[in-house]
């Protein structure tokens, strides 16, 4: 049963069948082969119940929020302000890339949106100031991945749904690892540019008065962050409601910046609904597959198999980490999250690991997947925004930051409290 499932899934995925159809056809096949009852008759009901899941309403809201921010002219000013503060470090504007990504990540739930937005504002600086283009591209690809670790995060909502874990708790758990990882990225840049000073390009000269004046441009993203994340922990709103508040607030900011128009809105709608449909069609297929896997007892069979290998707790965990690193080279992250979490999390929980902690660990592994070739979505995004040169530049530039992510994975395993301390204060 286990082997059949894996073979069907791998063949369909490798044959570039849309991931939603691959998961859907797999569930229908498993139902046909192994189930005593015709489970497919429940697909309408299961799909309706999950289509109206209030938790998932946060997805279109966060995507729409990102689309509005992208078009509201907030990102460019924010980048310039961060540059004033950080570019005295060895590596100059590359720290502004990472810092801006981290701040943008705190208003956005998506890594692609983060890399694309900051990449668009930052890339004109590479030539103008003589940076090492590879490392510069690497900071953007890697910095962008912070989008799914620093709350709000769409991936953590999906993880919460699939594992029945509290999303506010997952969000709290993401803060410190997100800050530590941004710090590791900056440290990597400092080490690289101390070793090769000419990679660092021309520094931006700024005075303290310029710096303080620039702070005003950080207010819009800060306000969005306060509205969205603050309302969750202030007990005012659920994550879904917080996302809706963010949409309304960002629309107000866009109007304030005079970038609100019918054209801007229809573009934002098209972008947001396309992304939502793309994500939801896979989620709904994955949820039904989850239902079938549990009904035919496959989840238990896999857990028993892994536990029966007689590996120690830590050996199993390392095996899982390696599995994700390899899979992440070839698979798109959302599909990877949706196909593996229903199978892997029961094993991890049976071993006695905390599901909230594992949610953060898996998110860092997904971030790694975003910048490891040949399939690394953020590599494509940065390469696409750049519009010239070769893909290899981005891949090589991102490698040092893959190293930083490995360090983060080890830190999370050795010090689980990096993720669990903050939630423990509240829950």
């Amino acid at each position, binding site marked *: 049963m286990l082997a059949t499932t894996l073979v069907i899934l791998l063949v369909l995925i490798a044959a570039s069948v849309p*991931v939603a159809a691959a998961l859907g*056809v797999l569930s*229908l096949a498993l139902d046909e082969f192994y189930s005593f009852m015709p489970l497919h008759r429940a697909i309408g009901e299961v799909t*309706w119940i999950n289509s109206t899941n209030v938790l998932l309403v946060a997805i279109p809201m966060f995507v729409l929020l990102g689309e509005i921010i992208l078009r509201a002219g907030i990102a460019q000013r924010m980048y310039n302000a961060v540059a004033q503060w950080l570019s005295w470090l060895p590596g100059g504007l590359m720290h502004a890339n990472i810092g801006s990504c981290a701040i943008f990540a705190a208003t956005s739930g998506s890594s692609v949106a983060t890399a694309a937005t900051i990449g668009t504002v930052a890339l004109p600086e590479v030539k103008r100031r003589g940076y090492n283009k590879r490392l510069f591209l690497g900071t953007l690809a890697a910095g962008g991945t912070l989008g799914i670790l620093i709350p709000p995060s769409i991936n953590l909502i999906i993880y919460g749904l699939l594992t029945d874990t509290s999303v506010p708790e997952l969000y709290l758990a993401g803060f410190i690892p997100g800050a530590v990882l941004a710090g590791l990225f900056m440290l990597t840049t400092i080490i690289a540019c101390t070793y090769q000073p000419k990679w660092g390009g021309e520094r931006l000269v700024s005075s303290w008065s310029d710096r303080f004046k620039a702070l005003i441009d950080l207010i819009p993203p800060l306000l969005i962050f306060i509205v969205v994340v603050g309302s969750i922990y202030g007990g005012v709103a659920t994550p879904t409601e917080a996302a809706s508040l963010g949409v309304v607030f960002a629309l107000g900011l866009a109007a304030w910046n005079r970038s609100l128009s019918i054209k801007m809105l*229809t573009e934002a709608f098209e972008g*947001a609904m396309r992304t939502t449909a793309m994500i939801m069609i896979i989620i709904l297929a994955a949820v039904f597959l989850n239902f079938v896997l549990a009904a035919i007892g496959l989840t238990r069979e896999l857990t028993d198999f892994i536990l029966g290998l007689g590996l120690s707790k830590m050996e199993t965990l390392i095996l899982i980490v390696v599995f994700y690193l390899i899979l992440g080279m070839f698979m798109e992250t959302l599909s990877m999250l949706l196909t593996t979490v229903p199978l892997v999390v029961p094993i991890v929980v049976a071993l006695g690991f905390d599901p909230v902690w594992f949610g953060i660990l898996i998110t860092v592994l997904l971030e790694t997947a975003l910048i490891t070739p040949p399939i690394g979505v953020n590599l494509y995004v940065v390469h*696409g925004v750049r519009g010239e040169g070769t893909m290899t530049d981005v891949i090589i530039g991102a490698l040092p930051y893959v190293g930083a992510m490995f360090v983060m994975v080890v830190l999370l395993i050795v010090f689980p409290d990096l993720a669990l301390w903050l939630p423990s204060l509240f829950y």
Partner: protein
Amino acid sequence: MIGETLDRLLDGLNVIARWAVWAGGAMMLAAAFFVTADVISRKLLSAPIGNSDEVSSYFFAISTTWAYAYCVLHRANVRIDALYNLLPRPVGAVLDVIALTLLGAYMGVVTNNAINTLVESWESTSTANTPLQTPLALPQFFWVVGLVFFLGVLIVLLVRSLLHLFSGNFYAIGAIAGVRGVEEEMEEELHIPTGRNRGTGG
């Protein structure tokens, strides 16, 4: 002859799909305002508006199925192209047709059962277990409309692709049902021309 008719039909479906997405986006924006008003009224007023979570979840379900057709017409479905990109175009074209067939088969099962769900709600006059007591058949009807439209678009795309396949127009299949290149995705995402896909065709 049939091909040209189908192409014109696809143009028409594209227009409808775009309007459906605008309507869906407007629904979500309306939901965002409703939820915001609800949250504020809950904090400030003794009589909160309420029920915004239920209404927004119906809007969400409906706007999602209404956007499926737009998604497939823009070839935005997630497909893993690690192997696909290495294959010659004729093989890729066959994979595109298989992809449409399997997506159509799966969505056919979903739509069929969704219609059953709707019919059951209608016949048993089920209402939501909430203060609003929404008759479930109402939101489910609009939800099913999106699924049926999506299935129709998939069938037209499949027939068109099969015709192209029989006449050997492998690149034409790529243009309506292939995996998207990164460049086109970027242009759509950011509305900036990346300047790399000019003249490459399909």
